[in-house]
């Protein structure tokens, strides 16, 4: 009985909160099909694309992945401390009618809690 109860909780939990993990190129290639679905998108912040309006907490930028496809992102809210060009970020939200990604959450994956940040400044 207990197993069933916990199983049920897990099952319904997955139903309410799953979001699909996509890369930028996947979303771009799917076009309108993904409009409105809850997505989780990974990519890098394109250099020179950041437009921040601190007063209204409005942030716009593009993210790109290895395939060099890019996607404009609109985010309202506090800009994370680590946010900068070329950083790996995860955005959660939906693709709007305007073709932009409207993010409710913006996560900066600091290369690690333990590893030093700003790896892009290391030599090579």
């Amino acid at each position, binding site marked *: 009985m207990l197993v069933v109860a916990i199983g049920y909780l897990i099952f319904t939990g997955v139903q309410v909160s799953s979001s699909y993990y996509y890369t930028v190129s996947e979303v771009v290639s799917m076009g309108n099909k993904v409009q409105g679905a809850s997505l989780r998108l990974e990519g890098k912040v394109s250099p020179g694309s950041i437009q921040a309006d601190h007063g209204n907490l409005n942030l716009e930028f593009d993210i790109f992945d290895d395939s060099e496809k890019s996607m404009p992102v609109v985010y309202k809210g506090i800009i994370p401390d680590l946010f900068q060009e070329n950083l790996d970020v995860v955005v959660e939200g939906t693709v709007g009618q305007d073709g932009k990604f409207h993010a409710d959450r913006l996560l900066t994956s600091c290369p690690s809690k*333990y590893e030093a940040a700003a790896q892009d400044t290391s030599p090579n």
Partner: protein
Amino acid sequence: MNEIGEFSLLLALFFATYAMVVPVIGDRLGKWQMVASAEYALVVVFGLHITAAICLLVALYSGDFTLDYVYSYTNRDLNWLYKLSAFWAGQKGSLLFWALILGFFATIVLLQNRDRNRTLMPYVVSIISATLLLFCLLTVFSAPVFEKMPFIPSDGHGLNPMLQNPGMIFHPPTLYIGFVAFTIPFAFAMSAMITRNFGDIWIRTTRRWTIFSWLFLTIGNLLGANWAYVELGWGGYWAWDPVENASFMPWLTCTAFLHSVMIQEKKDMLKIWNVTLVAITFALTIFGTFITRSGLISSVHSFGKTTVGVFFGLFLIGVIIFSTYLIITRASDLKSSNELDSVLSREASFMFNNLVLLGAAFAVLWGTIFPVISELIRGQKITVGPPFFNQVMVPIGLLLLLLTGLCPLIAWRKSTTINYLKNFIVPIAITFIGAITILFNGITEPLPLASFTICIFVGSTIVIEIMRGIVSRAKTAEENYIKALINLFWRNKRRYGGYIVHLGVVFFFVGLTGAYYNTETEKTISPGERIEIKNYVLTYYKYDYTKPNETLKKLKATLLVERDGEKVGYVQPERNIHFSKDIRGRLAPQPTSEVAIYTTPKEDLYVIFASLNEDESATFKVHINPLVFWVWVGGYIMGFGSILAIWPDSREKKRFLARHAEA
């Protein structure tokens, strides 16, 4: 120095291999000298790791930037404490640190068991050495901490400013200690299986190690939560991130194990179950390290990708196969002589508590590895976020809390209905009155109402149980109540330590429930303007700009805080810009927010300085987080209770001997 360190690590690899292989051969051949030599080899490994650790600390302290590790985690301006704590701030150093602690614990085990458990010891030594060998391999091949820079930079890259917080000095080592300590119960349990010692010797020998491990896992998780709360500046303390889950899962199964061993000690039941729990918990400590360091699950804070994950993965598979094999082949000998007496017995209720804890661990595991599972089955990577965990874990958590109150009230074996009524009637009456009181104080939502009600119930059962003990002791020993209380606790440390932990759990849940009423607001205001949230009014007063050193700029805002129209003080959230030097000596800016928290037992006022604009207006985010204070209080009470439970107790020993003499 560095060469000495590097060489020590290499030597340790050979000694650890020796200590793993030789005691088993020695035992099979009946050659005790061989076992003894392996024990010495294990101590030598510890000595070599101390040597390597000293070399690394010297390099960190003196700023020897010829080492890649020193360059990556420190710079000249860094406080010496953070320089030294960089030892465990990075992947490479933390692996050496892990090996160091394991060697230390192994040495203590050897000292404790010079004349005890001699049949078990060859295998204990071998299993601990096998685990140690994993870390030796990692420190030599996969993550060499003494790796040199291709050239000598003038200054280091610096420690990530987010990690420059006292919580970060203590949080990782505390968790590591918790993880590592659990190697000892695992080694003893498996050795008992190998040598077919099916009694509870291994449990008695490792009881303190288990609680010790549990204590450090508890405190480690709390410190992590606290660090996230004060440093990350998103207003919360737990986000169900894979890294957090990784340390939470073994905590859950360890808790289950702590309870189920009591059944084996007292009733000689659940033997297979206990061995299984030890194996699962140990596997989870490795699994946690594996997922966070292999890049298998993407986390907000994953480690750089290296071969470290592969080693952990292989070791994990080894642990699972090894322990499954042992449990299956020994299962028929582990059958209990006693059966469950009644569904309403304490054994049954403990069993139920165990299943719920294990279910909780499974739910967390499922949510954590869901992206991997979904990709395997449906070819589609799907993640589940905090809503999943909240939906699943809240009911499970409340059920567990309820059991915390119920289980101790249920007697061993069968008990009569009258007994139950007697035990339950007072707490239920108190709970009823309490529930009505909070209902009329505005807590009308079902979830918090249920949670607070259960908290009152559990709290009252514990307090009544303690009071009953005091009164009866005061009567029989003719002591005053305070003396009776102290003696009662001191003479039954294990039992009352447990009650204190349970009391901590109650406070902890009170704090968690407060999160239901969290509110937040975000506003851009000019000096003189106000932000209103709930019964607080914050007036933006001014900002200050300072530059303490070359690599740090500080912006500090000052806000006047009024509560219910009365001035209560100022909060000063900061926005700092740290500059870390890159390889060419250029400065790269990294902003960090230092939140200001005004704490009262009722609620936390949590203020984030989000940005300063050109027209001197500033953006603030303000949270009101009710009852967070009690999360930390509950945590420290849990810690205190478990320290009391592991404190050496001569009476416990006598009682145990007496019980076994009768039997």
